[in-house]
């Protein structure tokens, strides 16, 4: 990300513009805040049409009032389901936790000029390493939990590092290698879960041994004895990850080099930085963050590994990172938004007749509008920026 997109462009031509926009123009964080908000609003408006149009029965009867009630119910259920109760908040946090870490993974690579879509595979690597620590050790927790997290970081980091090394040494493009390492990690996980070392004794299906109680991340709401409040300290770990990323890029020398390398590889090389080392390092750090995400999922949320514990988190995380504009704070908020959509989507299904597919479409719409800032600008008649590119990646073979 370049400085131009961060600061906005205050020196725009004073053409005729609506009052609302003129107002937002004066806000410093204009580009970082307004666009995502407008994207969400646009998505909700289009989503309302979709909810209405898929409600075929009412549509046939011409029951417009009923449709409007459904839309209202849906949009009320969304925030109340996610934030209206302690359990809702807990579920939002449970969903957001791995998304923050996987989103950071994408962002660290992106700001180093790499398009890492391998978070899924890196989560698998980290999760499997941490589950192994989790079921072989039996406390004390103060040793075992950090060790399991560390195992997740190292395994995920190595898995990502391989991609970085391949890129640095052979020029293999990271998009292809990360897709392939995702497959390898997924199938390797499935195979491992069938081996005697990992598989739960007496089971036929691929499921790992259970992490010992002492090895689980403590509950976040420890004062409550309600077992359904599933949020765990993995959330704090994720926040620590965000702080780490901020420190890395804003305060550390390595981060400065990564950032320079990310925005202009030639300049970085000219300045005496080592591209091969930086590429590998960036992918190691990114993979480590995703691996940590896998670890929190295992020793926090689930307590055991299945062949699909990474789910679609690795890919949702790309959207989270884009939505958060590759900044740690932005990613935390974006992951929360996704968590809200997930926890609230459940309530939405429960309270209305809206099928799950439409809930998922709504989520996709938000991402679409965010990923297409030009479309959002067009709809809301915002002036265009000089540089509209949110991300800058080097081309093939560069």
């Amino acid at each position, binding site marked *: 990300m370049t400085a131009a997109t961060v600061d906005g462009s205050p020196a725009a031509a004073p053409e005729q513009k609506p009052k609302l926009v003129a107002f937002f123009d004066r806000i410093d964080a204009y580009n970082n805040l307004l666009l995502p908000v407008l994207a969400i609003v646009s998505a909700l408006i289009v989503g309302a049409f979709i909810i209405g149009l*898929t409600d075929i029965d009412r549509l046939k009867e011409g029951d417009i009032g009923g449709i409007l009630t459904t839309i209202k119910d849906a949009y009320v259920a969304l925030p109340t389901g996610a934030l209206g109760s302690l359990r809702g908040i807990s579920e939002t946090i449970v969903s957001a936790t791995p998304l923050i870490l996987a989103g950071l993974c994408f962002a660290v690579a992106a700001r180093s000029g790499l398009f890492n879509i391998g978070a899924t595979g890196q989560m698998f690597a980290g999760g499997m390493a941490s589950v192994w620590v989790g079921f072989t050790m039996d406390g004390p927790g103060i040793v075992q939990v950090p060790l399991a997290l560390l195992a997740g970081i190292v395994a995920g980091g190595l898995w990502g590092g391989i991609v970085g090394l391949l890129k640095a040494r052979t020029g293999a493009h990271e998009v292809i290698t990360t897709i392939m390492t995702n497959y390898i990690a997924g199938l390797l996980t499935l195979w491992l879960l069938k081996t005697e070392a990992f598989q739960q004794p007496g089971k036929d299906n691929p499921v790992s041994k259970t992490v010992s109680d002492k090895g689980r991340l403590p509950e976040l709401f420890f004062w409550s004895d309600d077992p359904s409040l599933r949020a765990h300290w993995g959330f704090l770990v994720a926040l620590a990850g965000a702080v780490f990323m901020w420190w890395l890029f804003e305060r550390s020398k390595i981060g400065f080099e990564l950032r320079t390398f990310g925005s202009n590889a030639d300049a970085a090389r000219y300045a005496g930085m080592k591209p091969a080392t930086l590429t590998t390092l960036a992918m190691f750090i990114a993979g480590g963050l995703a691996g940590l995400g896998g670890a929190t999922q295992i020793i926090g949320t689930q307590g055991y590994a299945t062949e699909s514990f990474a789910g679609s988190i690795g890919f949702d995380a790309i959207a989270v990172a884009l939505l958060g504009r590759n900044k740690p704070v932005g990613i935390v908020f974006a992951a929360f938004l996704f968590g809200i959509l997930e926890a609230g989507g459940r309530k939405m299904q429960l309270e209305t007749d809206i*099928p799950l597919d439409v809930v998922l479409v709504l989520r996709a719409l938000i991402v679409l509008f965010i990923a297409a800032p030009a479309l959002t600008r067009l709809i809301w008649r915002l002036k265009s920026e000089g540089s509209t590119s949110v991300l800058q990646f080097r081309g093939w073979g560069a």
Partner: protein
Amino acid sequence: MRKTKRFAALALTASLFVVAACGDDEEESTSTEAPAATEAPAATEAPAATEAPAEGGAVSACEVTDVGGVDDKGFNQSAYAGLQQAEADLGAEINLLESASDADYAPNIQAFVDEGCDVIITVGFLLGGATAAAAIANPDQQFAIIDSDANDDAGTPDDFADDVNLENVRALNFATDEPSFIAGYLAAGMSETGKVATYGGINIPPVTIFMTGFLNGVNYYNEQKGTAVEVLGWDGTEGSFAGNFESLDDGKKLAQGFADEGADIIFPVAGPVGLGSSAYAKEVGGIRIIGVDVDMYVSNDKEKEVYLTSVLKNIDAAVFDTVKNVSESGDAGDDYVGTFANGGVGIADYHDQAGDVPDELKAEIEELIAMFTAGEMKAS
């Protein structure tokens, strides 16, 4: 002018997504079809855990699907049909939560516990762990689970090997190896290439029980007739699996692979994945498909001509029976195993392909069914 442009952009996006949303199947309305008249308005409802269930004696029954979704033309849909019957006949209040991934199982079940459902029906073996955990945490809540006994002390997904029997969970299991055996016998008798095939969604007992029954049926035919019909895709321990219950594309590829190897009858045991095989069979012709769980000639109308028959797992009847028990006594009832004898499993009509099946084979099939019903025959 800008205004029209903006509107056009919105309309375009909207229409794009409507097409995307409706495009994949027009039967989507299954879940929206449920009459909403009985539903309480959402806005006034506080999400408190202690909220009273349905007033006025109406029983409330809630279903959590697995990732196949309620429109899978398979067991999720079949269970929901049981609930819809309960709604019509018993005045039950029914509700549904679909799961997008296996991370949704536990929170979906919890959401229904909070809603105060009288009975929560979890569909599928994969929900065993989450159901067991919820049943242990909420001993007063009634549950029923399909294809699992949810009896587990570790809180992990369960198989049929038992640990603890949970009083508040009614296990609904089905001896699907019986009708699959019949299907295998029929397939062996109908195959012209001497090769038939089966594949599963994932390698778990409630899937492989079908495949084993099918294999044994083919082998039984070979024993009886001295033939050597070959089964592709399952040898009793290892075989072909899609690895999921969602991808129609995988179903198509698997069917194509089996067809290339010479199989002319395919028995997919993979929920919606099997629909991909049906689509392929319709496309190329000359391949017969055996449906699974429900009579797919009826449920998958647009490819009905490819179905030789279907192996029936009458989940709807078992679910209805469970809701009925709860409405009468508050208890879901004792564990249930569906067989030919109690009508819990069955074999569908040949429909359009009845003319292709020789009368002699039909008679043998009838005889086999009678033997199963009388308990004189074992499928595995």
